[in-house]
């Protein structure tokens, strides 16, 4: 059985929480355990926040698709913004951040650590992130 739920939200802060509710409810239907659901929620918050904060999308929307593929949940987060080059993003180190004036830059690391896989596809027309988590 393959099932899809899609969701489009305006780019406002705290809209990322709406997305986590749908995520939780899809993941519960797939019988993922509580901790995995929490991990998905946090990874998804980060992906949405990045679209909201960095994409400069003119339509000001984030598009999210949840695909239930057997025991695997695939989540696609898309914006039609300016894009970025993930290979240029430096891995954050706490030893440096604690002394640096900018403490930010953890979103991608959190996503990658909490999900089973994260694939980023970004170019001038926008950014697409595909994240997966198995039951």
């Amino acid at each position, binding site marked *: 059985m393959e099932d899809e739920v899609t969701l489009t939200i305006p780019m406002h802060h705290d809209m990322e929480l709406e997305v986590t509710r749908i995520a939780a409810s899809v993941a519960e239907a797939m019988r993922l355990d509580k901790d995995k659901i*929490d991990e998905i929620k*946090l990874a998804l918050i980060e992906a949405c926040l990045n679209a909201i904060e960095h994409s400069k999308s003119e339509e000001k929307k984030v598009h999210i698709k949840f695909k239930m593929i057997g025991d695997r949940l695939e989540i696609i987060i898309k914006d039609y913004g300016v894009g970025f080059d993930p290979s240029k993003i430096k891995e954050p180190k*706490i030893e440096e951040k604690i002394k640096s004036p900018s*403490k*930010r830059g953890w979103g991608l690391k959190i996503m990658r*650590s909490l999900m089973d896989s994260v694939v980023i596809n970004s170019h001038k027309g926008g950014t697409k992130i595909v994240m997966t988590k198995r039951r």
Partner: protein
Amino acid sequence: MLEQELTLSARKEDKYSVITTEGYINNPGGEKIALACYQLMDQGCKHFILNFSQSKVINSIGISILIEIIEKVLELKGSLCFCGLTNTIAKTFRIMGLTQYTQIFSTEEEAIKALS
């Protein structure tokens, strides 16, 4: 969501202060925690217990404000620890390396015991 807006209460003891939050630790949530900590620092407090048992959701902006607080606490040669974290928040703090500078306890009692 409005209902998620962070509220907090602070309790100053002789040796330490406990800040208990409720709600989303996002940018404004983190700023509220920072403000509470800095006010306590002004009153001479150096050791902080952040009780997040009523805060189930966090984001990386909120966490980066926590790192700011940790930086200030280290400058004061004080300490900061967390309790009541969800498994996912604890895991995230560990992944980020926050545990090099802070301790994580299950409960507030354990945190207090460790500070006493």
